[in-house]
């Protein structure tokens, strides 16, 4: 790490806002040296609660996040917010508008709001988000909130960076609750029916409840996000420890008889007035203690790191292969060869990869030999 980056890191750890902002920029830009910076950050992380908030456009995410931050501040906790907005796939430009809604905490530097755009990078946003969370964590933020529009796989990956995910459902969604079943349902740890003073709120709550019941009965849906737990086979060992936690969720269906599972509670809020925000915070905290008590948290964190390692390696190998592709004559030429019928993509992939695979197996042999020699 060069001296400038070291200074920047020291400044961040000392609590300089500018340094935090600059490091997040480096992470976003993948500026030279950002990797060393992030790897240095790791030693200082692990103290923040990370909350993901997602929902359809106009569901009231930014307003709710604003109220959430305000309430945390009243409790004396510092807050970091990462607000993600889409960018144009054509120009790369973006208008990042979430900040406008965050007026309650404005002027309070202990709420650090950072807008990020989905720069159309190949799955890179979830890595960048995770790294930005690390930076805020190392800075000493108590609560970190990631806000994103829940539209696709990319966003699902992003909110997975969080320990607890809240999904906002506006009232009158009607049939759109049905569409929520795919994808969004599985990631929700807490459901929030925002704008609860509007017509149709009760019905939306009811629909969600029904959906959760069906999910619980057939063994997917509400329980689906604990797939990790079940797969690892650790679920059974923690039976009973968390019973009290999941029982006193006031919003949750009361027949959550499988004590090992977290039944996502449904919270009603009116974000513009701040109604229900306290209950929401209680549910977030309840979920956090459920995670810790049941041992799911460790598993979740482990999975997240496994995914991070994989993603990093994939990016690196990808870069190596791009070089290889370049030396094989550039992808355009190869594509042209396919177009004119000289060859096909599979043959090319094979040709490009064979030398790499050969190198790897040679390296393996050397490693094995080294082991034998010693």
């Amino acid at each position: 790490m060069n001296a400038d980056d070291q200074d920047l890191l020291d400044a961040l750890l000392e609590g300089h806002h500018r340094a935090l902002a600059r490091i997040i920029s480096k992470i976003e830009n993948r500026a030279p040296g950002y990797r060393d910076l992030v790897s240095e950050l790791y030693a200082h992380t692990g103290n923040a609660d990370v909350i993901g908030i997602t929902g359809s456009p106009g569901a009231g995410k930014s307003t709710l996040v604003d109220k959430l931050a305000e309430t945390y501040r009243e409790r004396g906790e510092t807050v970091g917010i990462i607000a993600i907005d889409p960018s144009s796939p054509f120009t790369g430009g973006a208008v990042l508008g979430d900040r406008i809604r965050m007026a309650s905490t404005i002027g309070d530097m202990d709420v650090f709001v950072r807008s990020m755009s989905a720069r159309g990078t190949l799955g890179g946003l979830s890595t960048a988000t995770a790294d930005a969370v690390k930076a805020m964590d190392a800075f000493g933020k108590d609560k970190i909130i990631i806000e994103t529009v829940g539209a696709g796989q990319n966003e699902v990956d992003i909110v997975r960076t969080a320990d607890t995910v809240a999904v906002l459902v506006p009232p009158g969604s009607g049939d759109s609750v049905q569409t929520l079943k795919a994808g969004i349902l599985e990631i929700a740890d807490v459901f929030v029916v925002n704008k609860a003073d509007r017509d149709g709120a009760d019905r939306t709550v009811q629909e969600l409840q029904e959906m959760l019941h069906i999910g619980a009965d057939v063994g997917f849906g509400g329980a689906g996000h604990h797939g990790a737990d079940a797969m690892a086979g650790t679920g059974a060992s923690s039976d009973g420890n968390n019973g009290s936690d999941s029982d006193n969720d006031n919003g949750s269906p009361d027949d959550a008889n499988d004590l090992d599972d977290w039944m996502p509670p449904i919270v009603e809020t009116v974000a513009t007035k701040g109604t229900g925000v306290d209950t929401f915070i209680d549910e977030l905290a309840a979920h956090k203690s459920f995670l810790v008590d049941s041992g799911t948290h460790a598993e979740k964190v482990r999975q997240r790191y496994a995914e991070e390692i994989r993603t990093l390696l994939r990016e690196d190998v990808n870069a190596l292969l791009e070089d290889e592709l370049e030396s094989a004559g550039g992808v355009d030429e190869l594509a042209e060869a396919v177009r004119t019928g000289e060859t096909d993509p599979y043959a090319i992939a094979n040709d490009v990869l064979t030398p790499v695979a050969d190198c790897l197996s040679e390296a393996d042999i050397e490693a094995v030999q080294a082991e034998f020699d010693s």
Partner: protein
Amino acid sequence: MSSEQDEESQSQPQSHGQGEGRSIRCLVAKVGLDGHDRGAHVISRAFRDAGFEVIYSGLHKAPDEIVQAAVQEDVDVLGISILSGAHDTLVPKIMDGLEEYGAREDTLVLVGGVIPEEDRPELKEEGVAAIFGPGTSIEETIEFVRENAPER
């Protein structure tokens, strides 16, 4: 009407907005008691279409709030739109705030709106890089940002 451009501090025009993930970040700000934001909207939209990342502050912000946003978002460019005539009190407050967080040096500060000719030198002295009055073409503004956005 012509816009004045300060060429002294801008040494290395660079190709921004392309290359490895680098994108010019701008904060478009409305300060004080000034409810006219059509211009700010048009600029935001034009910047977006030029490939910049734009954060719009919303109306009626205090100088402190603008400083907070500019620092946290680590913007390359801060465009302040003022049509109320209060530029000579508001702009210096923002510049002082940026100074406090060490952000004054490498933020390109632009002012747009109705700024009388006689007030301009003072704003330039405060550190404003350029002032764009009514009638400035959008292309001109974008070109100026591309050429002068700070290299970091």
